[in-house]
């Protein structure tokens, strides 16, 4: 006879990795329906995300291979290995599409889904690397009117109000001024043009950072350098644009800022070339008093390649350590002893970019 009631089965299964869960769909019909149940998938993701050892987290990286042909490819690396310094060779990843033209680029990840741009945004792919399922999105510029436009900003996130995953694309409306935008909805599997009245000055970093239901970009104001800038937000649910107040002490200094996400909070990295990178985090979204500087990375710890030409990003790891991606290098900061170290990856040198995703069963249908 069955030894566990259903609620205990769900408790146990929600602590398994995705690979094991897909295998155990074969146990019985009721296990299969539990494992594909929406509520189960949600609580499984919540538990995976909260794991303090980050055993369900992976780094996904784009590498550029010169041989045999100049081609970008994706690899993944187990996050706890990178922090522990044990074995952190990037693993081959079964990228679903073999023959693609142009480069692949990780836009962002959300709830275990990774959004990939192929050939500078001509095609998009939503992909769950944990279940190996993917969906190729319809082309974004399918009508003649929008052809030949340059994608300048994009982003990926989850709209809780409609329980829907969305890809955002902003184009420069050449010759006519202004920006036009389209949003893809997974639910309707289609792109929709939206009102979007931003000027062309959202170009600090093309990828919107997804926090609290909104995408965020650094926006340059009318100023001689980066000194005048602010954080522009776009709500994926309501389509409303807004501003997020930044730490006051930085408004007038000459830093070049970039946005990042740490532990679900919006961050600003103030990069002062050849000196340091200051990392600020907004602990409570939308509350300007909650900005806290968490670390300053002195230049001596920064990689030799000019970090200012790349957008730094970061993620949190076991024991509150922070992983920085600066150019083509990783740097780990440990807040407990205030030290920095460089994790090494064998087999491969430079990568173009890296993002982090958490395993999930989230489906693309």
């Amino acid at each position, binding site marked *: 006879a*069955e030894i566990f009631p259903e609620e205990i089965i769900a408790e146990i299964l929600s602590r398994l990795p995705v690979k094991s869960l897909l*295998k155990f*769909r*074969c*146990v019985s019909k009721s296990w299969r329906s539990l494992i594909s149940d929406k509520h189960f998938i949600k609580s499984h993701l919540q538990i995976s995300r909260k794991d303090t050892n980050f055993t369900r987290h992976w780094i996904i990286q784009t590498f550029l291979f010169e041989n045999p042909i100049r081609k970008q490819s994706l690899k993944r690396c187990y996050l706890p290995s990178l922090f522990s310094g044990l074995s952190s060779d990037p693993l081959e990843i079964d990228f679903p599409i073999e023959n693609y033209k142009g480069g692949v680029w990780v836009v962002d990840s959300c709830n275990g889904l990774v959004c990939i741009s192929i050939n500078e945004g001509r095609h998009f792919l939503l992909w769950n690397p944990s279940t190996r399922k993917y969906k190729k999105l319809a082309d974004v510029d399918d009508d003649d009117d929008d052809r030949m436009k340059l994608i300048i900003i994009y982003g990926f996130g989850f709209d809780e109000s409609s329980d829907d995953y969305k890809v955002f694309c902003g184009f420069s409306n050449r010759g006519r001024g202004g920006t036009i935008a389209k949003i893809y909805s997974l639910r309707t599997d289609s792109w929709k043009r939206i009102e979007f009245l931003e000027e062309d000055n959202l170009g600090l970093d093309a990828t919107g950072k997804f926090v609290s239901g909104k995408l965020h970009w650094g926006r340059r104001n009318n100023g001689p350098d980066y000194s005048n800038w602010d954080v522009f937000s776009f709500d994926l649910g309501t389509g409303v644009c807004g501003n997020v107040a930044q730490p006051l002490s930085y408004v007038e200094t000459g830093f070049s800022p970039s946005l990042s996400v740490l532990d679900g909070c919006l961050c600003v990295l103030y990069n002062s070339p050849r000196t340091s990178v200051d990392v600020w985090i907004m602990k409570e979204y939308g509350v300007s008093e909650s900005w806290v500087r968490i670390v300053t990375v002195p230049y001596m710890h920064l990689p030799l390649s000019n970090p200012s030409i790349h957008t730094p990003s970061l993620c949190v790891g076991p024991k509150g350590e922070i992983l920085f991606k600066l150019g083509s290098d990783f740097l780990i900061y440990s807040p407990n002893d205030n030290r920095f170290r460089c994790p090494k990856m064998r087999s491969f040198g430079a990568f173009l970019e890296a993002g982090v995703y958490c395993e999930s069963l989230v489906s693309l249908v």
Partner: protein
Amino acid sequence: MAAETGTPTTLTLKSNDDELFSVAESAAILSVTIRNMVEDGCAGGVIPLDNVDGKTLASVITYMNGISAIPADEEKKKSYRDKFLSDKDFETLADMVLAANYLNMSCLMDAVSAKIAQVMEKKSVGWVRRKFGIENDYTPEEEAAVKEEHKWTFEGVETDDDN
């Protein structure tokens, strides 16, 4: 009350096979079920726990005493839990998770569920069916079709160790 008199209150718990256990109230109320009984005034007599046998209750009490002796330090509590569960076999873990559920002890529930998940992670489908007492309700054709959908997940399955 204990704080006023200076002597810790002791509770008597009774397992479903009539074993009696003494345990400090401060440790026992990690169980929400026991805490509710204490608040309802059951503490004076013997607290009967109809769904837990003596062997499992003894183990749960060891855990209650161990974990409540550790001050508020999540790292240390976690390593105590890991060590406490490290040598337990599947059957013992199964009894523990049922007891933790009945006693409403969320920290033990989390830890034992995670441990069972860790034990079963690389096991075969057949092993899981036997250990969980689950009847295979697929026809061979249905099962083959479900397996085919995610065939790669059957790589690296451990050889069964229970028969």
